[in-house]
């Protein structure tokens, strides 16, 4: 063989060997509109933090596509007769990323840590859990102060950390023997974590990207084998024009769901790109202050509901979205499907107006929404125009989010209407009903209705305590009916969101809890 041919063959062999380990792996690149602030499961609150946490860590249970919780770290669970004690039996094959097993002690530590730090999603269990008992290595029970039917539904937000690893990295702090509970370590660690999830934290360059690497020993395995996502890169891409450029070139594999309908329409025409819609649990409402004149009059509130153009909202503002039916979106199990739905009818609006005690001198109404919420401003303009035809004046105000939260703190400062998008924090009607309508939850942007209705309070409280599904559903149906009758909101639509991705991505599963659709273990590439 000529010398040059031998050299070429040798070079080819060397290249083949050295590049074999680096041949194209399945890399998912995902855009986000904001940076990740923390990957500490006890401190995460927003959507990018939740994406990071649910991929690095595991909860006891995990929601499926219908929002129903399924086993994860917990294989089985029992609920006591009095619904005060929940006992979980853990899988015995789950390991943390350092190879150590997941024990009940880790679960107990993680919940104690969550409650002690008073951060993140701890509000879900803060006044609820009265006891945490380790029964044996793989069995743990939580005792509640009172029955709480949505308890299981809240648990996907509680993720388990490796106790030994966290304790080994604690620094002096306010928590006795546990020091700072490892907060500083988890906040500054850029390539280590304390999780057991399907992905490890490979690197985190704040402002650039966060990278997750496949954990080969994950207890649920990798059903798609070498088609599964090996690495996921989530990076901050707020500029939509840039996102489109990268999607078209193939550099971006999957987008977030926070662009406009028109943007996704554009993206659907790109070669090699698929846009997947999802009917979500996000509900867009114009919340009505039931304690401020003139919206303290039920006839004025019903007038507003009759005057709103729902058809325009679901055909032009958010095409494909479903008109809302009451306070609970249909994506959440527990909606009353028989609730009354308003349609735009200016004659009926006028009738309600004339029944009002303020008629004919109805004070000007004020609606507040966030700066930049152009779509909602269009809806408000449409409502303004409709109200003008029946002689009612509506003024539109754009405010910063901080200002809106301030206004929402008191009924006197809360405007007549506030445009809000509400996303479910857990897959249960309680996430909407309690936070929006119970008097105990008043004073936040979620409850600017200031409903403060004793019957509604009692029904919501009772529904939280009732664990029998049929009995509970009856209570939920009744309270939803009363709420719709009281008309404390213009229930507009449940958002249909869109996800653009390269058409070789498979396995995308929408779950009606914030960020849980970005669970990389679902995905694989079919090239």
């Amino acid at each position: 063989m000529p010398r040059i041919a031998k050299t070429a063959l040798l070079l080819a062999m060397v290249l083949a060997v050295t590049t074999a380990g680096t041949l194209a792996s399945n890399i998912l690149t995902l855009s986000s509109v904001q940076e990740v602030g923390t990957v500490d499961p006890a401190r995460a609150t927003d959507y990018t933090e939740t994406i990071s946490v649910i991929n690095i860590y595991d909860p006891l249970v995990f929601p499926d596509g219908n929002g129903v919780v399924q086993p994860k770290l917990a294989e089985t669970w029992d609920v006591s007769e009095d619904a005060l004690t929940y006992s979980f039996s853990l899988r015995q094959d789950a390991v943390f990323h350092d190879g150590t097993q997941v024990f009940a002690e880790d679960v107990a530590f993680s919940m104690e840590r969550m409650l002690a730090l008073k951060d993140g999603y701890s509000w879900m269990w803060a006044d609820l859990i009265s006891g945490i008992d380790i029964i044996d290595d793989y069995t743990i029970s939580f005792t509640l102060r009172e029955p709480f039917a949505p308890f299981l539904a809240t648990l996907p937000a509680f993720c388990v950390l490796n106790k030994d690893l966290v304790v080994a990295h604690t620094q002096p702090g306010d928590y006795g023997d546990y020091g700072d509970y490892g907060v500083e370590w988890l906040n500054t660690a850029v390539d280590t974590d304390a999780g057991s999830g399907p992905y490890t934290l490979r690197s985190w360059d704040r402002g650039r990207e966060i990278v997750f690497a496949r954990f080969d020993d994950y207890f649920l395995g990798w059903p798609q084998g070498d088609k599964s996502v090996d690495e996921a890169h989530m990076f901050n891409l707020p500029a939509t024009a840039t996102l489109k450029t990268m999607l078209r070139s193939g550099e971006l594999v999957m987008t977030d769901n926070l662009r406009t309908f028109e943007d996704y329409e554009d993206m659907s025409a790109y070669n090699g790109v698929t846009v997947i819609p999802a009917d979500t649990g996000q509900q867009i409402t114009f919340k009505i202050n039931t304690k401020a004149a003139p919206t303290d009059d039920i006839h004025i509130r019903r007038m507003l509901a009759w005057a709103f153009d729902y058809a325009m909202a679901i055909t032009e503002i958010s095409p494909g979205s479903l008109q809302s039916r009451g306070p609970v979106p249909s994506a959440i199990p527990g909606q009353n499907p028989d609730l009354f739905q308003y349609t735009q009818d200016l004659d009926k609006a006028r009738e309600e107006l004339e029944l009002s005690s303020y008629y004919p001198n109805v004070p000007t109404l004020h609606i507040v929404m966030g700066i930049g919420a152009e779509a909602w401003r269009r809806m408000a303009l449409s409502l303004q125009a409709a109200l003008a035809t029946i002689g009612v004046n509506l003024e539109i105000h754009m405010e910063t989010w901080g200002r809106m939260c301030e206004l929402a703190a008191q009924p006197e400062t809360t405007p007549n209407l506030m445009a809000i998008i509400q996303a479910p924090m857990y897959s249960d009607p309680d996430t909407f009903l309690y936070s929006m309508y119970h008097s105990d939850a008043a004073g936040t942007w979620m409850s600017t209705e200031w409903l403060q209705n004793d019957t509604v309070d009692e029904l919501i409280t009772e529904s939280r305590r009732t664990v029998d599904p049929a009995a509970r559903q009856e209570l939920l149906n009744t309270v939803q009916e009363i709420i719709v009758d009281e008309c404390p909101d213009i229930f507009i639509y449940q958002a249909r969101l869109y996800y653009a991705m390269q058409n070789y991505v498979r396995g995308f599963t929408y779950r009606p809890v914030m960020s849980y659709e970005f669970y990389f273990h679902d995905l694989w590439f079919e090239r």
Partner: protein
Amino acid sequence: MGVVLFLARRLGYSVVVLLGLSILIFTISRVLPGNPARLALGPYATQDQVASLEHQMGLDKPLPVQYWVYVTGLFRGDFGMSFQTRRNVADDIRHYLPATIELVALSIVWIALFGIPLGSLSAKHKDKWLDNGVRLFSFVGVAIAPFVIALLLQFIGAYLIPIFPATGRLGMMVSAPPRITGLLLIDSLISGDMRAFGDALWHLVLPSFALALGGLGQIARISRASTTDVLEKNYVEAARGFGIPDRRIMSKYALKPSLIPTVTVLGLTFASSIGNAFLIEQVFSWPGLAKYGVRAILRKDFNSVMGVVLVIGVVFFVANFIVDLIIGYLDPRIRLRKEQQGNN
């Protein structure tokens, strides 16, 4: 000695200015609507959680006490905790500032490299086609918003003719060099990682040029005006009369004095770009201080706002000082006058 006294005087003035700036921004940031603890913890946080974080951050203390704690912390390098990143603002600044410095520094290089020669040439060929072309270019550069330029460059350079990367400081498959300064070009040179150096430089081209274009137009105009002014001076006429070639007149007799206003504007451009680079950073997903600062304002993360403002203030001080030194070199009369003032 004159320079030392000059520096000491400048330092003194800057401390006073920065102190005043800190009081102003501290007060304004706390008056802005919205509870930063509530914004940081999310909408579902209980009042107990909010109160706990407020206490942790010292927000339950009187304002003057909060300010005193903040200022005394500054001298220890403690800029307070950021609500958004949950770590010390000093760490955030150390993380984000180099990206902006690198971006702005290269944009200044473009401005100087192209703007000054274009202005000089324009002055030399005054009212001819070259001059008119440069003037048109300058107007366009100044008139078009930087983010429009950024989007255009990105579309053309990263998609239509995909030569350059669309976003970020480094490609996904390139490992960052060991962090020494945070400036990727410097760090990669120090560690000998030429792949990272080349990749980082390639990523810098589009965003730095987008940031530079407006300033380039401005500097070309200023350079043209000052060069025109210098070329009309008697000593230049005399040099021409002695038969000295035009090229030598431009480079030896006209360049240095015509650079004085240009250098001043370059210094101010550098300092102001640290804060104004926000839109460029947004378009190119550049993880810089400007973007961090705007996010801090929107989330009422006032420790971060204070940190960014103080950093920009320091950058202005340093830039102005360097400009003064350069001008002193360019115009000996200024240096000698200052030395005389220092001795008196």
